[in-house]
């Protein structure tokens, strides 16, 4: 047996209460030993990682990859590489591609491109309804068999609660998890930012918090009735956090995530009509941001990237006309570490929210433990990284970091034992 030996790294894995400077040995893609040398075999390669963190690779519960259909915004290769630059090893890709990922052919195409690129591993989310139109069920079992880790309608609405109920019942029959985004389309219609004092001042149409919470209430009630396994994607309001807590208290097994942007920014960022901050779900109030941070710190919420790259033209329009979304992969790690630096987010909570919790949602055997696949990121927390346009891996021109230099750089990423970055 020949080993990769990483020495002197600070190993952090909150799920295993691990936070110590230790040696780790990897062979045949798996973690062979932590803290002690394996009894037999020889070391093939040794890596001194003093001053760096070794963490379980980040798992993104929702990103918009631009293929198939939106190659002007980037490619699966460019975006999965950008994800590696922030420590991601696995990415759940949303199905709102062109064509929509509602057939095994499209899923296969995504998987092949991701495998060929060889960066972060892509775990496709299939469309729950045909064409994401919210009316007819997609071939849900076929999609699951093709490798979809879960099914979702992304941010497209179900036609009505009848369809949502049937989607849930069918998914429950075959044990297929659903990722659901809570948004009442009639309350959100026409809105482009959080409904509040900033929207009123800017004269922009608002999306009230109740667009999320009324839809969430319906989802929770129907999930309880159907017994389906659900994950709520992209929660943005304080009230949703409270509703999820209540549902769990009543025995519903429901998990949820919030986009990183909603932990970093509030609707105040829109005050200059900067179309970069046109995102869905919208950036909400400071009270919402604080409640979301608190829920991440207590382990109630995972963090997703909601990465959505765009070409320049997509954002070069008046605020409401610009396409929604932020290119977040490059910025993810430094922005998250800024929250840690400010004391708003605990480091262990951050790692849990991007590694342990998503692994739990997806049922992946993932973490720094002997016998597990070695999917991990080596992070140099003190190293500075430049975020000038030419330094970004993402092809998206809509990064919130523009010319900044921030701390937190990924020096290596391993997926199933293979160094991919």
């Amino acid at each position, binding site marked *: 047996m020949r080993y990769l030996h990483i020495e002197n790294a600070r190993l952090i894995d909150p799920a295993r209460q691990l936070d110590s400077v230790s040696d780790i040995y990897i062979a045949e893609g798996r973690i062979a030993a932590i803290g002690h040398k394996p009894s037999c075999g020889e070391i093939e390669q040794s890596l001194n990682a003093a001053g760096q963190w070794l963490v379980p690779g980040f798992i993104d519960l929702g990103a918009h990859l631009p293929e198939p259909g939106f190659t002007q915004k980037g490619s699966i290769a460019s975006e999965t590489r950008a994800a590696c630059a922030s420590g991601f090893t696995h990415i759940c890709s949303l199905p709102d591609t062109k064509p929509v990922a509602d057939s095994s052919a499209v899923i296969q195409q995504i998987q092949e491109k991701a495998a060929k690129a060889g960066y972060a591993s892509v775990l496709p989310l299939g469309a729950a309804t045909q064409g994401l139109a919210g009316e007819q069920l997609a071939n849900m079992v076929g999609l699951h068999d093709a490798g979809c880790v879960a099914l979702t309608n992304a941010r497209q609405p179900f036609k009505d609660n009848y369809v949502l109920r049937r989607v849930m019942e069918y998914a429950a029959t075959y044990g297929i998890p659903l990722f659901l985004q809570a948004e009442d389309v009639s309350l959100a219609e026409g809105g482009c930012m959080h409904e509040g004092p900033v929207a009123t001042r800017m*004269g*922009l149409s608002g999306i009230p918090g109740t667009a999320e919470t009324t839809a969430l209430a319906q989802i929770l009630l129907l999930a309880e009735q159907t017994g389906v396994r659900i994950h709520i994607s992209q929660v943005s309001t304080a009230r949703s956090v409270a509703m999820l807590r209540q549902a769990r208290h009543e025995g519903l097994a429901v998990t949820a995530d919030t986009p990183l942007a909603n932990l970093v920014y509030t609707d105040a960022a829109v005050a200059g*009509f900067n179309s970069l901050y046109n995102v869905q779900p919208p950036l909400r109030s400071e009270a919402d941001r604080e409640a979301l941070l608190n829920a991440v710190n207590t382990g109630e919420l995972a963090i997703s990237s909601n990465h959505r790259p765009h070409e320049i033209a997509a954002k070069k329009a008046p605020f409401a006309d610009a396409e929604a979304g932020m290119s977040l992969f490059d910025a993810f790690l430094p922005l998250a570490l800024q929250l840690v630096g400010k004391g708003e987010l605990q480091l262990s909570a951050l790692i849990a929210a991007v590694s342990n919790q998503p692994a739990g949602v997806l049922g992946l055997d993932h973490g720094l433990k002997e016998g597990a696949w070695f999917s991990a990121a080596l992070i140099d927390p003190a190293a500075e990284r430049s975020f000038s346009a030419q330094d970004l891996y993402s092809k998206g021109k809509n990064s919130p970091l523009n010319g900044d230099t921030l701390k937190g750089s990924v020096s290596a990423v391993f997926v199933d034992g293979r160094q991919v970055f």
Partner: protein
Amino acid sequence: MNTDPSQVQLTADGRLKHFLTTEGLSLDLLTEILDTADSFISTQERAVKKVPLLRGKTVVNLFFENSTRTRSTFELAAKRLSADILNLDIARSATSKGETLMDTLWNLEAMYSDMFVVRHADSGAAHFIAEQVTPNVAIINAGDGRHAHPTQAMLDMLTIRRHKGSIEGKVVAIVGDILHSRVARSQIYALNTLGAAEVRVIGPGTLLPKDIEALGCKAFYRMEDGLRDCDVVIMLRLQKERMQKALLPSEGEFFRLYGLTEEKLAIARPDAIVMHPGPINRGVEIESAVADGMQSVILNQVSYGIAVRMAVMAMAMSGQQQEKNDPAGQEEASA
């Protein structure tokens, strides 16, 4: 792209170079606009109405939304400043709107225009254009979405000042569809800066935007409460499509609750003036007896509109000229 609209419109030394919003403008600057407009009113009464302030300049009226009245007052104002004027009516295309706007701008830049007067259905459109076009083109906002309509607000300020002596200490009520009104937002900021004692908005909950009081006004649901002690009553136009959007039950009920009748006007101060940005819906937000009555100054507003537009066009062009001559100051401003 991260600058506040109120700052984008000023030169390094605080002079106007675009006119995008009344928000964030100083008392001195708003007063300068009103004083300059006052001086133009006297030229309007002369036989030869033209002044040469914009001679040799090209002004483009860039209206992405239909408007005859505002567009024609801008056209007259530009002509009386001796500018060449080009009117472009550009229907908003349903597809790739952003690209169309950028393409339009690039084309217009190639014509060496000096000033764009912009009306657009999107909030922030004028601000967007001010940031995208080449330097030394002045942008005058002729209404962007629900955000701002600063020249309308300033002509209303001029109307109040000329009819009530000053704005300072006055109680002003704005009545009706505040939610969709760019005029109301621009008025609220201008009134506060110019020292109004109290700015009120009156309307049903469906037509008052969330957190409107954060803009610097007091919200009322009943005319009986909101009109008490008012010096100025500004009625807003009620668009017919509000009924279809379930914001109101009917024109009749709206008129009964918020329509300005002689009876309701009697609640305000006896010397209160009645204003309306037009065009008025008689019998919907205002009854004819009031619109045509002694306290109405609605028609005066229209004639002041030309003077105010002349004032901001002249001031913004002069600010642009100054930046052109002193590019260092301009870099400072954008740093």
